[in-house]
């Protein structure tokens, strides 16, 4: 733990500490408030890792239930949010493995299955841009997501956490339980790979 960025041996100030204590005593309603608080972040992480909104929603649901069950194992050596994100990333990783196994078995192309992503939960677009612009934007997003999906798991995770979710390197280190340097090197390679993928897909960047 000591090799983690930010010197995590010190006591971590956790804003969720009190609610977490209630949850550890079996307070389901208290856990509800945590779900409310973190569900958006959780769904977005899962969605960008998995690339499918429905699957991501299910994964997040499972992750929350697992989190509540494992609440007593939570010792407070990291922030609750960090612990929660770790859970959802692991769950997403497992789901990806399942999906890949199924796709390989059924011979369905990953791209084909992901054309119709961006589920019902997408934020309504700004009223400003025209319909054409909206369509173009959606198409572009789909392509970007496809490129993200094409990345290796370890690259994708750091890219999502850093470039999409904006986590600090320290947080990413905690979430993924990886040294800071590994996170950075993975992230740089991930960006390189993504750029290449986008260049291939879109043409000129």
């Amino acid at each position, binding site marked *: 733990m000591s090799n983690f960025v930010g010197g995590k041996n010190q006591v971590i100030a956790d804003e969720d500490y009190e609610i977490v204590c209630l949850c550890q005593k079996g307070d389901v309603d208290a856990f*509800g408030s945590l*779900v409310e608080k973190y569900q958006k972040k959780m769904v977005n992480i899962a969605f960008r890792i998995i690339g499918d909104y429905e699957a991501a929603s299910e994964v997040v649901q499972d992750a929350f239930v697992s989190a509540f*069950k494992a609440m007593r194992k939570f010792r407070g050596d990291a922030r609750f949010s960090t612990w929660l994100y770790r859970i959802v990333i692991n769950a997403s990783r497992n789901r990806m493995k399942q999906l890949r196994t199924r796709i390989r078995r059924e011979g369905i192309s990953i791209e084909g299955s992901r054309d119709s992503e961006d589920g*019902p*939960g997408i*934020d309504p677009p700004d009223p400003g841009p025209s319909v054409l612009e909206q369509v173009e934007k959606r198409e572009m*997003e789909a392509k970007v997501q496809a490129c993200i999906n094409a990345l290796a798991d370890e690259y994708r995770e750091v890219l999502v956490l850093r470039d999409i979710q904006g986590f600090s390197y320290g947080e990413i280190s905690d979430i993924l339980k990886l040294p800071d340097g590994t996170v950075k090197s993975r992230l740089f390679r991930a960006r390189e790979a993504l750029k290449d993928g986008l260049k291939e897909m879109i043409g000129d960047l």
Partner: protein
Amino acid sequence: MMECGTILQRLSAYLEGIVSSEEKRFIEEHLLSCQPCSSVLRELKRASELVRDLQEVEPPPWMTQKVLARIRREQEGKKGIFEKLFFPLRIKIPIQATATVLIVVLAIYVFKAGEPVLKRVQSPTARDEVASKVEDFRQPAAPAVEVPAREAKPVLKEMPKLSDRRDVSPPVGEKGKEEMAGRVREPVHEPMREKAMGIPEGERRVAHERQEAAGGKLDETVMTLGSAERDAAKEKRMPAAGVVKTEEYGAVRDSLANEQKAPAAAAPLRAAVAKRAEAASISVQAGDVKKVVDEIEDLLRQLGATRIEKESLQDAEVITAELQSEKIEEFMKELRIKGEIKEEKLPSPIPTGKTSIRVEILSVR
């Protein structure tokens, strides 16, 4: 190119601004002179923009509800599993309680079931009481029919001795005769049969009075009696100890039944006893029994006796008849001529009207 490779590796960090100022200046100098590296930087910037521009998705509105519902359901399920796991422990207590209650109930039942057996063992006493009641009614009013109190005792007690008694110990009332005859079976039979009649006997005796003396008709008489009496009568004839033992229970049971009948039977019994008080019993010893029987019969006819009946027993002939009281004296006189009167029981004073006479003719051996 070596420089380009190093620069490209650092471009990402450079974009993020996490490179030292020295490194930053070095990279920027290189980018100004190297077009391909500048293009890569531009592409990286564009890619980062595209990724950053990805819109956030909203979580499904049911998320919190579903998560909490699942947690609650799983908690209940967990509880259910917990309960199932400990279900045997929980049911054990009722099982133990039920078992205990069952054992107690069983023990009480067994104890209760044992009680009737105890009653059976005691029952001869009860029968004694009934029998003695009958005797109370009989004895004072009918001295002529000497039924010893001992004879009236429960069948149960007498049976084991029955076979012996037939040969060796006749009833007290017949003792004198026994001395002369050596083996006297019939007198034994008589009091026994009387016993067999039991309590309701009194009622029936009115109808079967005439049959009373006729040993051959005993079965018929017995048939008309209640089952209790019949059983008792059968028992008297059964010398086999084993059989007697089994019959004991029947007798005991009957004695219990008699106990209940006793009060109801009391009234007709008194009437019967009064009737019996008129009876006269005579024992005669003769050399030629058949001849004497015929003679006595003729005599009775001459004296105007009615309902003359003869009964053949093993060792004796019995004649019963109803005779006018005035004629008894004459009858006795004639009788003394015909044979030796061994025993004579006449009601004294001799009542008026008809009197039952029972004459036993025993052979001299």
